[in-house]
């Protein structure tokens, strides 16, 4: 109790004011906080406990506590060890890394270009980048299915170059999955990168040039360090959701490009093994929390006002 032993009236008044402010804080934030805690934090905590339970006869979790789900995730099943689940994990990781790398390569010049455009055009250009991501994920996947399907001009062109056999088409394939991931997450990299490019200190670059540094050296020592916070924030916002992606591998991958998200979903649907699915989800939750730690650190570096909205 902070107000125990206060003797002066002003101190009592101050503590009363502080209490009023605390009540005000609770009144305005509690609906939102409770909603997120009850309907997201509690369910995720529940899901994490399922990961340590046994699989019941109908796929529903039951006692006793066990680590079986994690063993199954590592490949140990009733029939001995098989690498299927590990392959899925590694494939998720590899496709995430590949897609994130491509997204960086595309978003970096875009964000720079937007930041050098006339100020009144910039909101419009950012909107042009963001609007496609407002359309439904499934619809965007249909667009790529159309573009890459066998017989489409692009598939025929690639077949004519001899890169794929005719009649094959570019979809379904791992290639289509990576294209879909890049397409889906490009805006999440452009926005934080734009935020750092907008505040770029050109004095440092001029100084590097004056000191005789070539374009590459001045980029590495004057530009890259300044944009690093945006780059890292973008990497978190792209790679974590990409790692758990469900829709794109399911629609564009055609069964052979399953990622962790699909493995998890399958355990709750046809395969009926909730604990195994929960164990896979646990990995994603841990990755999410790790990503949040990075974002929080960056938030301070990027300055308190910079919000990574959208």
């Amino acid at each position, binding site marked *: 109790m902070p107000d125990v032993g206060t003797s002066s009236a002003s101190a009592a008044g101050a503590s009363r004011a502080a209490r009023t402010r605390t009540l*005000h*804080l609770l009144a*305005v934030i509690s*609906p*939102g*906080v409770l909603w*997120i*805690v009850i*309907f*997201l934090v*509690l*369910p*995720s905590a529940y*899901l994490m406990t*399922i990961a340590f339970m046994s699989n019941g006869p109908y796929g529903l979790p039951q006692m006793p506590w066990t680590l079986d789900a994690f063993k199954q995730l590592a490949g140990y099943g009733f029939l001995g060890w098989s690498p299927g689940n590990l392959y899925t994990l590694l494939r998720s990781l590899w496709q995430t890394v590949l897609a994130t790398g491509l997204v960086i390569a595309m978003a970096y*010049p*875009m964000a720079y*270009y937007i930041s050098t455009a006339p100020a*009144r055009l910039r*909101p*419009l250009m950012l*909107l042009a980048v963001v*609007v*496609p991501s*407002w*359309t*439904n994920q*499934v*619809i*965007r996947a*249909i*667009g*790529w299915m*159309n*573009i890459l399907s066998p*017989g*489409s001009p692009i598939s025929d062109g690639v077949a004519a170059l001899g890169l794929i056999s005719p009649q094959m088409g570019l979809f379904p394939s791992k290639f289509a999955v990576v294209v879909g991931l890049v397409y889906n997450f*490009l805006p999440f990299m452009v926005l934080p990168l734009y935020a750092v490019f907008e505040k770029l200190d050109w004095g440092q670059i001029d100084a590097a040039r004056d000191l005789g540094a070539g*374009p590459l050296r001045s980029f590495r020592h004057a530009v890259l360090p300044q944009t690093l916070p945006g780059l890292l924030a973008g990497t978190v916002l792209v790679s*974590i*959701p990409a790692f758990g992606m*469900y*829709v794109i591998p399911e629609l564009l991958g055609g069964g052979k490009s399953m990622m962790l*998200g699909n493995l*998890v*979903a399958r355990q*709750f649907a046809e395969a009926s093994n909730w604990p195994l*699915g*929960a164990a896979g*989800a646990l990995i*994603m*939750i841990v990755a*999410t929390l790790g990503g*949040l730690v990075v*974002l*929080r650190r960056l*938030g301070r570096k990027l300055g308190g*006002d910079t*919000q990574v*909205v959208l």
Partner: protein
Amino acid sequence: MSGRGLRITLRGFWYLMLLFLYAPLAVVALYSFNSINSSAVFAGVSLRWYHALLADDTIMNAFYNSVVLALSSSVIATVVGTLLGYGMYTHRERRLGWLIWLVYLPIVMPDIVYGISQMSFFTSISAATGGMLDLGLTTMVIAHVSFQVPFVALLVYSRLVGLDSRLFAACQDLYANAWQRAWYFILPTLRPAIVAAFFLAFTLSIDDFVISFFTAGPESTTLPIFIWSAIKKGVTPEVNAIATLMIGAVFAAAAVALAFQYVRAGRRNAAG
């Protein structure tokens, strides 16, 4: 490379990226007008798939569910999220680190984990209470609000951060009480942000598939879920038609959001 050459290369790259971003949507729209049933060959313009759409009761029902879900969740999320964003701003000196964590959690969490957590949670509650929170429109609204609230709160918060904090002090100097302050100052200044937040929440709801998919019941099929099961059977031009209408709706919402942004910018210029 010279500065000019770099500029021209960058501009070319920018247009290439715009093509990359809009080609899939354009292709969906194009094939929705295809006169034959093919997603690779365009034979001629026809509206037959749009006519088929209107005659399909399942689609109209899914459309109805989508609108009810998006409207009700957005209204709740706008109220709850505006309060949260306002609280985050007025009490920002308290360094509420845990609150920032809580707000960013729904934004970063992969939607599959999100959907499955809520699905298993709702199912268990329903089993324990004998039918309370059965999967259906109610659970979908609850789920949607939980991911819309952080976006609304951040939008409102960043609008408040952009304000001159002396305005709040001025209000107090004029002896405005809390209610008067809210009614005559905070709500009017926040109106553009609140409207934008509502539209953002609405598009987030329409855009969502995964979370809806896992928290939906048998009677609460929404448009994205309908489209999903239709493609699982093979893309039909009918799906392209409904997808095109949804893309059009999103573009309209984007235009509204942009209009509000320019109104804001215009006022700022006039004031400064």
